């Protein structure tokens, strides 16, 4: 039980996918203008991450290893991720049309979010079991949501800040991300 908790904390805080592994920077910069939207994207990504973690484990365990096909890892994982994203897109469109419109192009772009492929690839690398994969995927999603919502909160305040002209826009966002990454490195001693 403690081990599962540590995997969760490790994926969410210590090895945060955005701020420690630097994966998924694209949506981190692109959809962090408003807290509401970024929270929606975070939840969608968490859902996709948890599901892809589970699917990645099943694929690894029952197809890739028994049939000795490690070279097909990327293809299978991308197939699984894109299918899940398609499913999430359909479900969101039906159930939360406003969120669907707000996320716009970034919803299908979850497919190409390297954080999710990174998660799928890390599961066999870390030799996690099924339950561990669930916690790892969910923790990674929570970490992603945390980072992107924090970023959105900062950017909402940055709107009122007197930013020097050359630093406005993406530059100040990236500088902020760097400072956040430094702050998150403080979690390193946690485990």
């Amino acid at each position, binding site marked *: 039980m403690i081990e599962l908790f540590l995997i969760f904390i490790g994926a969410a805080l210590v090895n945060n996918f955005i701020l420690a592994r630097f994966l998924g920077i694209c949506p981190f910069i692109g959809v962090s203008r408003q807290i509401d939207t970024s929270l929606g994207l975070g939840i969608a990504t968490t859902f996709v991450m948890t599901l892809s973690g589970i699917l990645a484990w099943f*694929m690894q365990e029952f*197809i890739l290893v028994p*049939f*000795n*096909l490690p070279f*097909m890892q990327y*293809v*299978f994982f991308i*197939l*699984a991720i894109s*299918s899940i994203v*398609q*499913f999430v897109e*359909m*479900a969101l*469109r*039906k*159930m939360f*049309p406003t969120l669907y419109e707000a996320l716009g192009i970034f919803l299908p772009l979850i497919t190409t979010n390297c954080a999710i492929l990174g998660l799928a690839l890390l599961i066999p690398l870390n030799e996690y079991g099924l339950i561990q994969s669930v916690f790892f995927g969910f923790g990674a999603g929570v970490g992603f949501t945390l980072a992107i919502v924090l970023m959105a909160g900062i950017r909402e305040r940055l709107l009122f800040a007197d930013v020097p002209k050359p630093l406005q826009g993406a530059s100040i966002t990236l500088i902020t991300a760097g400072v956040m990454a430094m702050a998150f490195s403080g979690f390193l001693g946690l485990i």
Partner: protein
Amino acid sequence: MNNIIFATLISVVFLGAFFGIGLALAARKFKVAVDPRVEGIENVLPGVNCGACGFTGCKKFAQAIALGQTEVDGCTVGGSETADKVAAIMGVDSNSEKTVRQIALVRCQGDRNRARNLSEYRGISSCAGAELVEGGSKGCAYGCLGLGDCVRACPFNAIEINSADLPVVDERLCTGCKKCVAACPRRIISMIEDSSKAHVLCMSEAKGAEVRKVCEVGCISCKRCVKVCPADAIRIEKYLAIIDYDKCRNCGLCIKECPNDVIVRKQEEARGRIQEVKKCFDSPIRGASL
């Protein structure tokens, strides 16, 4: 070797079929019916998302039309041309002759030289701000504050502040979206139909003597226009002359009769002011006066 190729093929086919069938089933379950007319209507709308129709954007307006919740001629920016196209998509008559083009009219002539300032306003440069601080610097409590909230509200750059601190509406650019009407804290901008001619350019509900103290071009409710009007189109309400555009015959007698030149013809008045703006752009003093 053959085994590996075989296993790869089988597993890819199996997974592809699994996800494909799964997604097809999900698509059936989560099907959202989209009206193809919405997209068509959206394409013929101007797409400026100004909100003049009362919806949050062109897309919402298009959806409302497709659902029959609003009229096809609701877009004031696109005018009758857009209404015809939308009506063609919806398969109804547009009644586009009903949609008369409307333009904004600033109902105040009290510029810097003609309406007295009684105090000095040094707050943020916004009419809404000045209105909060005891109504700004102008002596007249109804007149234009001249700080340009309407200019900033206009999505079409149709309003400019002239050299005498009064807003001028460029009739060619005005689309009648009413954003300036809502932005003006003193509510002195109103919409007029292009065709109507004589307008009372004053909103002061103060008594004649008080108006005279603070403004040279305010309505002092002398009733000379009421008496001279052959069509009984002018009445005085709250010490202010009001023209009933349905009765007005555009004879122009009131314009000649008004002692303070409060009643003017829109076109002439606008032309005069636009020339003033051009003059002001040429003069080197402009930067200093701002």
